[in-house]
């Protein structure tokens, strides 16, 4: 059986590398996208994605727009999305929750806590 995949949507190469290294070392497979539009495409082409970690402030399509787009699309409807951003605004967190987000992480993240959060949402990597 293949391992569970996590899609990372972030315009920062450094953050994608950090998250990839952290989750790959915990046994998860990684799919990367550099903005919301690429994230939507990745969800449509990678049916194995079990969860999304998504930045908020990105070019072309931001994290909230990404959420709203995939929640209106049968492909992305059931996939849990956790926002990964520098923003800790309660107002934005509430907005993301209303748009269907599963959680919120304020960067910079702690590796062990990120793995624990992913494991809590999708279970062991398989």
């Amino acid at each position, binding site marked *: 059986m293949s391992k569970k995949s996590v899609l990372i949507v972030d*315009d*920062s*190469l*450094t*953050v994608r*590398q*950090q998250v990839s*290294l952290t989750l790959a070392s915990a046994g998860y497979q990684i799919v990367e996208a550099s903005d919301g539009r690429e994230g939507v495409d990745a969800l449509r082409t990678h049916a194995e994605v079990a969860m999304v970690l998504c930045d908020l*402030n*990105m*070019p072309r399509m931001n994290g909230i727009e990404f959420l709203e787009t995939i929640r209106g699309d049968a492909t992305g409807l059931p996939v849990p999305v*956790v926002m990964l*951003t*520098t*923003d*800790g*605004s*309660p*107002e934005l*967190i509430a907005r993301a*929750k209303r748009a269907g*987000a*599963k*959680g*919120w*992480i*304020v*960067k*910079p*993240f*702690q590796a062990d*806590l*990120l793995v624990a*959060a992913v494991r*809590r*949402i999708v279970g062991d990597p398989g």
Partner: protein
Amino acid sequence: MPGDSNQARLAEILYQCTFELLTELGARPERNAGVRQPPPTGESIAAFSGFCNSELRGSFTLEGPSKLFARLHPIPPTMTPRDLTDWACEMVNQSVGRFRNRLLAYGVSLVTSLPQSALGEKMLLSSSLRPSPTPISFAIDKMVLDGWLELEIQAGFRLVENPSDQAGAALTEGSIVIF
């Protein structure tokens, strides 16, 4: 002048945010209060992010030698120019992000821009804004990380004396909330 006081206090909050970030990255930053350094020799990187609301707008720029950004990079083996300029963007993004989060407790809500960066030699920052930018400079491992805070503050804006710890304050960095 009240505007000067606002600018000085906002600069101090941003200084603390950047200091915290650098410390979490494993550096031992020290306040570099000296006169602005001449352009460093060798390759430098500058990264900036803008922010605004209806009462103030500005930007924060971080500039220093490439090797300093490499020293602070969280994944040390990656040292390509693309890695370093991307990392410089993320550093200024996280610094301004903390600033934005801290200001929520003062009742100030900011929108931030996407960060941008540039790499070059003998880089010299200049500003068309008056008053001049506030320097926020750090000494790290015998290198200098220069920061510039540019602000335009509307008349009548006043930063409250004390932050509130009531509802409205932001989640702190590293927080994880699962709904």
